[in-house]
Structures are given as structure tokens and as C-alpha cells.
């Protein structure tokens, strides 16, 4: 049912001969405007519409002639056109600006055909024959001579690279058409570039649908990577980038980080952890601390548990498995100083990774904490340990004294032990030997340590989507764009590690709270319930955060979980060795 352009020329009943470059792009499905560029289209209502039976009345009232029976087909082709225009923006634009071509934009069916042939001149015949077929066949016929990419696996999307320039010999008739006026009340605005000024192409995108497609494309790419089909994965990755560009906000950022990670995985170009400047990662950590409540939640709840465990001790010793900047300890010192019975003497052992710049950051942190302790009037001793892995720690190294109460604190550190087999058992055994009053563990609430790559990928996609969503907050609620950017970078590096690296390099091996419960239980620890004070502090903290409505604190069998809407994201739990008196 292809209508020849000659027909439209002859049957056209437009009044007056007004020339002008005019291209329209419209979607018969109403959708939101993309955040990208837009062209304005001057349109005049054509009241002569309705050439024959079966024209869609609504569109005819606006000046567009499409047969009702063709509508689905036109919609499908418009999608293809959108994709094509998105990919081949440069080609289309240069072509459009140099050639004066007039198309009848009211005849949607043939106009779309024309545009598609413009962009894919090789496939004109296929388009004609493909009126009712699904996209899969279209793709097949399109890339028949393209051996590099096998895009048959892509469900329901048209994705193809454009090899050649659109041909100059247009088979379309040149006809003078009057500019049509768009009626913006019912249809989304139809757009056209200005005649000689640089043209900007329009992409009217249904962003929700593209969001779903984006997720599917990412998962398809991950599947391809798992099956070692790297060519397909590469092609899908390009497609992901295209789709991601049409999204806005959290979804785009997550997609781009995951796409980057997949790229690293495909080309095995994962940046080594050890090469990264530790002061840079500390800075990212600080920004993450400042811009969102996760770390603060972790610190406050862990401190409360430690405080309650130390209730009457005169000498306390805290072992921190990841000291970083020591942001957790001022609050604990202050709480200890305010104890009714007076402050105990406070020993802190801070453990950190080796530094690749010659700065002893652990000692610097210790000095600052000591200064603070002096203002509080708390006797304070600091010890810093540098070690590659926590498993290297030894009971004798930690110098535990008999009369002191010991607490072991690990915030987002223990999951790294899973990278080397045997490490986690070793460190837990060491902790048991120390006989601490309390062990506080804060970990991400997600299973990123499964053996199957696809499962890990899916879990990570959902987890980090929620996390990025929470960072997004409301406009104007973020402290500064730099903070937000740094936090995202901090999370992006985790994403890259989960997706792209393997073996001992993959250190972000998160496990869920239940998995930790099983592990700790079988190692000989029993849970200590976090009290209502911890819950109160966490609730207050979250209420203080702008965008606090989205955060949720949950109590889960004595452990506290902080989540974004319905998704728990981090969990604090406290443990003591089975059989010790509390």
C-alpha cells in the first residue's frame, strides 16, 4: 500500500506555492520531548485533508494524512527513523543543509518511507516489502552483507551502523508544499530546521520506554559478554550509549558507568586498583561521606553499639579495619567523654592500605584525633597499621591488653576478603581470638559475589540504580555539583570493579545481611541487637537530610538497614563471640 509520490503531487491540493526546506518528524504515539535539541516547524492547517476512505480522522484534522490501517506501520517506521536519525545525525544534517528537498510532510506513510530511504538507500526495496513484518526481518535483510555484527539477538529494536552516505539521486518528487502549522494541543510539537542555519535534528523520545530498552540493552550486552560473543557485545554497547544519551538524570549516569565497565570487561582494560592514587580515593570517600547519609548512618549506628558495649569499661580499645579519614571517631570520643562515669582511656588501632605516595596518612589522622581527644579531656593512644590485606593481621600485632574492652569495627571492608580464598576465615579467626566485646559490621545489602556473571550484573544494576537515584534527590538539594560528581565517581569505581574485574582484583564482593548472618553464626559469633538509641539516631539523621523522605530505616532482627524507598542498601549488624558475657 505504498503511495507513490507522484500521486501525492498530483492529488495535492495545497493552496499556494510556498517553498522552504521543511522536514517533519512526529510520532503518532504521544510522548514527551527529549531533553535534546528541537526544531520548529511552521505549519498551517490543511483543511483539505481526507483524500479517501480510511484516513485517520484525528490526524486529518491536524493536516496529516495517514490511513488508519497504516498507522501501526507508520509508528514502527517512525521509531526506526528516530534511531536512524540519532545514529546518522551528521550525515542527515549535512545532506539536508546542502540539498533543497521538499517532501510532503502530511503524507506520513510515504514521508517516513522517503526519509528512511534517504538514510538507508541500499535498503529501499526491503522497506517496501517489509510493510507488515517485524523488525527482526528488517534487520536481517539490512545487514545481509555485514559480517561483523550479528544483531539478530536484539529483541525488538532496530540497530544498525550506517556505512555509506545517503545517495544524491532522490527518487522523490520535488514538490512545493505549504508549511504546516502544528497544533500543539493534542500532538507533540512537530519540528523543522531553519532553512540555512545549522540544523538540529529532533528526537521525540518516550523516555520511559527508552529506559526499559536501555536496561534490556545493558542486560543483552552483559549476556553477550558472558557468552564470550564480544563482537555482539561491542555493537550492543554502542547502542547502549545511544539510548543512554536520551535519558536524563540517574538512569543515564548508571547506564554510562555500567557501559564503561562492560567496555573494560570486553577489552580487558580494567585499571588496576593498586595504581590508583590513594589520596584520590580518600577524597572521593570524603565527598561520598558529605553528600549522602550512608556513611554517616554506618558510623552513628556502629558507634552506638560500641558505646553500649563499653558501658562501664575503664579502658577501651577500638580496632578499625578501615581508618580512612577517621570520621567515625570524633563522635564516639565525644560520647565517651560525656559518659556519666567519666571518660575511659581510649586506644584506637587504625588499619589502612599501603600508600603509594610517601605520606603517612594514618599517622596524620592519628595526630588530628589526638588533638581532638585532648580538647575532650580523654586519654588517647593511637596506633596505625599498614597492611595489604586484613588477613595479614595477627593477634600479637594488635597488642591486646588483658584489662581493656575491645571493639572491632569494619565499615565496608570485610567483603574485600572474599577475593582471596581463605582470607575471610583467617581474619574472623583472629577476631575471635581477640575476644572483643563487640564486633560491628556495616556492609552493602546486595549479593555481588555470585559465581554467575549475569546474576551479579543484574543485581548490581538494580542496586546501583537505587543508589544513584537516592543521590539524585531533588533539584537544588545537593550540596554542590562537585560533591555529587565525586560521589558518583566513587560509586562508579565500585561498579567498574564489580563488572569488569575478576579474581583477586574483584574486591567489591558484597554479600547480603542474611549471608553474613550465616557466615558469622557458623564461625562462632552470636548477634547483638542494636538498641532503640541507634534507631533513634539513625531516624534523626535521615530526617535532617534533604530528600529524607525517600530514605527508610528498618530494623531487621536486631540489625538496622538503611534503604531508598523499598530497597535496603546498607546494613549494620553487631556481633560478639559466642559465650562471652556482654
Amino acid at each position, binding site marked *: 500500500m505504498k503511495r507513490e509520490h507522484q500521486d501525492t503531487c498530483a492529488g495535492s491540493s495545497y493552496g499556494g506555492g510556498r517553498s522552504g526546506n521543511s522536514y517533519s518528524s512526529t510520532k503518532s504515539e504521544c510522548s514527551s520531548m527529549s531533553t535534546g535539541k528541537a526544531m520548529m516547524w511552521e505549519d498551517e492547517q490543511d483543511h483539505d485533508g481526507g483524500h479517501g476512505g480510511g484516513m485517520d480522522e484525528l490526524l486529518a484534522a491536524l493536516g496529516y494524512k495517514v490511513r488508519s490501517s497504516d498507522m501501526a506501520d507508520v509508528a514502527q517506521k517512525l521509531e526506526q527513523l528516530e534511531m536512524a536519525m540519532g545514529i546518522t545525525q551528521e550525515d542527515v544534517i549535512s545532506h539536508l543543509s546542502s540539498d533543497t528537498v521538499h517532501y510532503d510532510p502530511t503524507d506520513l506513510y510515504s514521508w517516513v518511507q522517503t526519509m528512511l530511504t534517504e538514510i538507508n538507500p541500499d535498503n529501499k526495496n526491503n522497506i517496501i516489502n517489509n510493510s507488515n513484518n517485524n523488525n527482526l526481518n528488517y534487520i536481517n535483510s539490512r545487514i545481509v552483507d555485514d559480517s561483523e555484527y550479528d544483531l539478530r539477538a536484539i529483541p525488538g529494536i532496530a540497530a544498525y551502523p550506517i556505512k555509506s552516505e545517503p545517495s544524491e539521486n532522490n527518487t522523490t518528487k520535488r514538490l512545493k508544499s505549504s508549511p504546516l502549522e502544528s497544533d500543539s494541543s493534542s500532538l507533540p510539537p512537530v519540528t523543522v530546521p531553519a532553512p540555512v542555519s545549522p540544523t538540529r535534528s529532533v528526537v521525540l523520545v518516550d523516555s520511559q520506554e527508552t529506559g526499559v530498552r536501555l536496561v534490556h540493552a545493558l542486560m543483552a550486552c552483559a549476556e553477550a559478554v558472558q557468552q564470550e560473543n564480544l563482537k555482539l557485545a561491542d555493537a550492543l554497547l554502542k547502542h547502549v550509549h545511544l539510548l543512554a544519551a536520551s535519558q536524563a538524570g540517574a538512569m543515564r549516569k548508571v547506564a554510562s558507568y555500567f557501559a564503561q565497565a562492560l567496555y573494560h570487561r570486553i577489552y580487558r582494560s580494567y585499571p588496576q586498583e593498586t595504581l590508583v592514587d590513594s589520596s584520590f580515593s580518600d577524597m572521593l570517600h570524603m565527598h561520598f561521606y*558529605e553528600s549522602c547519609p550512608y556513611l554517616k548512618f554506618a558510623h552513628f549506628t556502629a558507634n552506638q553499639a560500641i558505646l553500649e558495649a563499653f558501658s562501664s569499661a575503664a579502658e577501651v580499645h577500638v580496632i578499625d579495619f578501615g581508618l580512612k579519614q577517621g570520621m567515625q571517631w*570524633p563522635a564516639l*570520643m565525644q560520647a565517651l567523654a560525656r559518659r556519666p562515669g*567519666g571518660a575511659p582511656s581510649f586506644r584506637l588501632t587504625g588499619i589502612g592500605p599501603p600508600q603509594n605516595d610517601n605520606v603517612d596518612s594514618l599517622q596524620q589522622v592519628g595526630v588530628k584525633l589526638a588533638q*581532638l581527644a585532648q580538647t575532650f579531656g580523654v586519654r588517647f593512644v593511637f596506633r596505625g597499621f599498614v597492611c595489604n590485606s586484613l588477613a595479614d593481621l595477627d593477634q600479637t600485632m594488635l597488642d591486646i591488653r588483658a584489662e581493656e574492652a575491645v571493639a572491632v569495627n569494619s565499615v565496608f571492608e570485610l567483603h574485600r576478603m572474599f577475593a582471596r580464598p581463605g582470607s575471610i576465615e583467617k581474619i574472623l579467626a583472629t577476631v575471635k581470638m581477640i575476644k572483643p566485646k563487640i564486633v560491628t559490621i556495616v556492609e552493602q545489602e546486595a549479593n555481588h559475589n555470585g559465581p554467575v556473571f549475569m546474576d551479579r550484573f543484574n543485581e548490581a544494576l538494580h542496586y546501583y540504580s537505587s543508589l544513584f537515584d537516592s543521590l539524585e534527590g531533588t533539584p537544588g538539594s545537593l550540596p554542590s555539583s562537585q560533591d555529587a560528581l565525586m560521589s558518583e565517581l566513587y560509586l562508579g569505581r565500585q561498579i567498574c570493579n564489580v563488572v569488569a574485574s575478576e579474581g583477586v582484583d574483584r574486591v567489591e564482593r558484597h554479600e547480603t545481611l542474611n549471608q553474613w548472618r550465616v557466615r558469622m553464626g557458623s564461625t562462632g559469633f552470636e548477634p547483638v541487637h542494636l538498641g532503640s538509641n541507634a534507631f533513634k539516631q539513625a531516624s534523626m*539523621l535521615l530526617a535532617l537530610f*534533604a530528600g529524607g*523522605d525517600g530514605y527508610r530505616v528498618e530494623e531487621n532482627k536486631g540489625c538496622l538497614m538503611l534503604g531508598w524507598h523499598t530497597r535496603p542498601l546498607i546494613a549494620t549488624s553487631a556481633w560478639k563471640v559466642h559465650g562471652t558475657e556482654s
Partner: protein
Amino acid sequence: MQNERRRRTKSGSEEKEKRHKFFINDNIDILTEILKRLDGPSLGVSSCVCRLWCTLTHNNDSLWEHLCFRHLSTPPPPSVRAMVAALGGYKRLYMVCVRPVLSRLGESEGVRNRVWTRDDEVQLSLSLFCIDSYESSNGSDNSASSLMFLCNSLNV
């Protein structure tokens, strides 16, 4: 009759004289007592009245201490005073932590069920204040931005 009137007017004018002779600035203890009962913004405004008032509100940290701990059910232990003084003083504590915390948590009263008390809020403010002081002692580029989240407007 006239004598009485004369006596009354005489005592009235004496009283007026006495009233004229009372300047609040001469009675700093009374002034301090009054200022103690003001709220934060008013205290800030009163420090702009004159030099004396400014000195009082600036130097007398106890005014701000009263402001911070006004709502506490039990007065805090004396060790807190030394601590706060070392960390930057009650005025700073109020400006940086207590005021934003109380006002923001007060706003949320109608919205969600409170599980905490005013005491808890003040304690949280103290903790945050410590973190803030610690962070500013770090120096470098980010000066005490761990409390930036308190400065942001809540989405109502």
C-alpha cells in the same frame, strides 16, 4: 484635699524621676537575664543594638549555652562546657548545629512520627559539632562541609 493631691503628684514625679534614672544598660545582670530568655534570631538582633549589647552577646557564651540547652530535661554534665568551649564555643554550636537541627527536625514533626526527644536532638547536634570541628581541623580544601547537608533546604 489639695495637700493630698500635692503629695500624690510629688510622689508621682519622684517615681517618674526614679523611672528616668533606670537605664537597662546600667543593670547588666538584669539585661543578661532577659537576653537569656530570647530565641536565636532575637539574640542575633540584640547583638546589633549597641556596643554593650554586642559585647555581652559575643563574649558571654553562657547566653548561647542557655539557648542550646534550653529544652533539655536534664542539664548536661559540666564536662560538656569545656568540650564545647574547646571546639569553638556555644555560639558556634548553636549557629552551625543546634539551630538547623532543631528547626529541621521541628518541621518534620507533623509529617512523621517522632521516635526521639529534644534531648536526643541536642545530643545529635553535639556529635555533629564534633565532626565539624574535626573536619575543619583537617584544613585543606573542603572546610567543614560535612554539615553542608544541614544548609540545604528541605524539599517540602
